[in-house]
């Protein structure tokens, strides 16, 4: 009888058996344990977009910047004490939820709209809204369009797999207007087609329109209509059934809002540690045990403000007065200033 090692087929069979028999059952037991997993791993896996100025885009040195990116850095500062311990994964609109559901990323911070279907039917949770936005239209000035009603019969370029397609359908249908929709997989392709003249209008979240307009050849030739046709609360997403992690995400954002309310900034956080104000002392962890209740270290709030900043600083740096986009605070101002950003008391 020939020696067994001369039969490659047997070796293949043995390898298959070994893989099948001893292979891991994937991930079902990690549902609900994301916070522990991150702390054990020592790195936060954050899902971002493939490049949207102001929200998540790599700069010329390859470093990620944007308001969504800064939120992930704040999460890393809160859970791991170091805002640099983040791995960013660029995701297209099509795969973003699958990546989160499968466990490839811990949090999706990708200018994603919080909707009923996504919250209820897709096993996702949206703990808090970090940016209140709405859908707008970008048109050429030469077309003399002043309001969306003038767009009857127009051609619109949109990004596939977003709430934009459905909003356009609803808006035009209920007003009895006709339109044609040209749907691209990537927003760069949609903007390129708009600029080439394939469409009359490019429609997306208003913040995205500002970001795309500055990249056009002659930004001044294009105007963003003032009318907003939908509500787009952009929120980070986590897996459903993971309340501990959802709490961390929610209260990290509220910590940044509270810091803005109390006047604590990146620059003065060191001196604020010596403050007598009980709200500031609880935020920065000098007093109380808020950090322990969340499962984080006591100085989580201090690390967030020191390494990333408060909400006003993050907003201004990425999309506001200190950035090329120059978007007004508007709905994203604090509630006491007339906006919608409101943090419950941290006590």
């Amino acid at each position, binding site marked *: 009888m020939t020696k067994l090692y001369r039969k490659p*087929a047997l070796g293949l*069979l043995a390898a*298959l*058996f070994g893989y*099948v028999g001893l*292979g891991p*059952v*994937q*991930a*079902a037991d990690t*549902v609900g344990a994301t916070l522990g997993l991150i702390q054990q791993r020592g790195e936060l896996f954050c899902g971002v977009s493939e490049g949207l100025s102001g929200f998540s885009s790599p700069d010329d040195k390859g470093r990620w910047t944007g308001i969504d990116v800064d939120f992930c850095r704040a999460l890393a500062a809160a859970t791991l004490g170091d805002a640099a311990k983040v791995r960013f994964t660029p995701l297209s*609109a*099509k795969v973003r*939820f*699958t990546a989160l*559901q499968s466990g490839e990323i811990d949090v999706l911070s990708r200018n994603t709209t919080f909707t009923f*279907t*996504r919250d209820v*039917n*897709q*096993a996702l949770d949206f703990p808090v809204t970090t940016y209140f936005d709405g859908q707008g239209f970008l048109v050429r000035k030469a*077309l003399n369009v002043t309001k969306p009603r003038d*767009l*009857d*019969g*127009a*051609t619109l*370029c949109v990004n*596939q*797999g*977003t709430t934009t*397609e*459905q909003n*356009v*359908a*609803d808006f035009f*249908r209920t007003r009895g207007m006709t*339109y*044609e*929709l*040209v*749907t*691209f*997989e990537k927003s760069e*392709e*949609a903007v*390129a*087609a708009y600029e*080439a*003249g*394939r469409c*009359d209008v490019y429609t997306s979240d208003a913040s995205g329109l500002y970001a795309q307009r500055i990249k056009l050849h002659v930004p001044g030739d294009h105007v963003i209509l003032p009318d907003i046709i939908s509500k787009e609360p952009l929120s980070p997403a986590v*897996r*459903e*059934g993971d309340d501990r992690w959802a709490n961390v995400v929610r209260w990290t954002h509220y910590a940044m809002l509270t810091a803005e309310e109390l006047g604590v900034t990146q620059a003065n956080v060191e001196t604020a540690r010596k403050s007598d104000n009980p709200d500031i002392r609880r935020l920065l962890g000098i007093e109380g045990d808020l950090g322990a209740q969340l499962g984080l270290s006591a100085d989580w709030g201090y690390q967030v403000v020191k390494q990333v900043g408060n909400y006003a600083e993050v907003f201004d740096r990425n999309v506001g007065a200190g950035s090329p986009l120059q978007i007004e605070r508007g709905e994203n101002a604090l509630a006491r200033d007339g906006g919608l950003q409101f943090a419950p008391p941290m006590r």
Partner: protein
Amino acid sequence: MDKAPRRPLLERLTHGASGRAVVAQLALLLVVVLAGGWISHNTIVNLQARNLASGFGFLNYTAGFAISQSPIPYSEQSTYGRALLAGLINTINVSLVGIVCATVLGYILGLARLSRNILISGLATIYVETLRNVPLLLQLFVWYFAVLQPLPKPSASFDLLGLAYLHNRGLQLPSVSLGAAGWPVFAAVLTGLLVVALWARYRRYISRLAVLVPVLLPVFVWMVYGAPFEAQIPQLERFNFVGGTVVRPELMALIVALSTYTAAFIAEIVRAGILSVPRGQIEAAQALGLRRGHIRRSVVMPQALRVIIPPLTSQYLNLTKNSSLAVAIAFPDLVSVFAGTTLSQTGQAVEIVGLTMAIYLTLSLLIAAAMNLANRRFALKER
């Protein structure tokens, strides 16, 4: 005479060559079944643990999005199932048109490469070598954005006799509608052609006047319905043309890119087939005094087709699957509409991707089966 006694079972399974083969195959089957079962079990357990919806019930939900070019009536209130059908028909249309164009172009190029004229064969070689080696997605972008950029916008479009307009949003053509007589007239044309084809096949001689049958029969049917006629000429409104039909640049770019790319491969297959015919056949035909065109049609091509058809099947399958690149240029094919928009909106990735793969598999198997029928006709009849 007695038969030899059968050996014990264990000895049969391990000592004889066929016995060992049976054991090995059973073991492999067991491994494959176990692996498949483990993957399905893993998927189901994880989907349930994460509370993700499953099943195909979503196909009945309202879609809520528009499709820019739909071959069937479709509105935002149609179901996802209808969107799937629209995308599927778009894919089939593009694939069929692409296959026909690629074959014709590939045949011409294959002959051109074999031409004795250095200029023609040189140009054909450059074409084949360039287009085979550049990725299809890049070629698709070139056709789409190279077609869009130079064409004027609708308000300044090229005017073709006042009936048709060419601009960067498409080719606007006038449309003619025959009202209620539309389908009957179409059926009459097909019937007429079928009658003429069968008549020519089964009777040696067919009068030249018989070609009038597929022309007169539809006209007669049209008169019976009261001769309805409605023509629409495109009119320019504020943003776009309204009326008539339009061929969109997405469709044009996709068909052109797919056809030219696949034609480069088909050209090489055709060339290989023609070169495979023994030189003696051509020399014998020349000795009989046949002219070049006649030789190619009657002697070379039937023998070349034996070699051409099997690899041609692969190219057709490649073209069908490559049509899924349509999503990059906003053409609503199956992948774009179903595995793109619908997947993003419902989140049921496993069912949607599985169904899409099953559909492409079915399309490919159908094409392969059709080509196998053709192959059987040309294959050498062996004893």
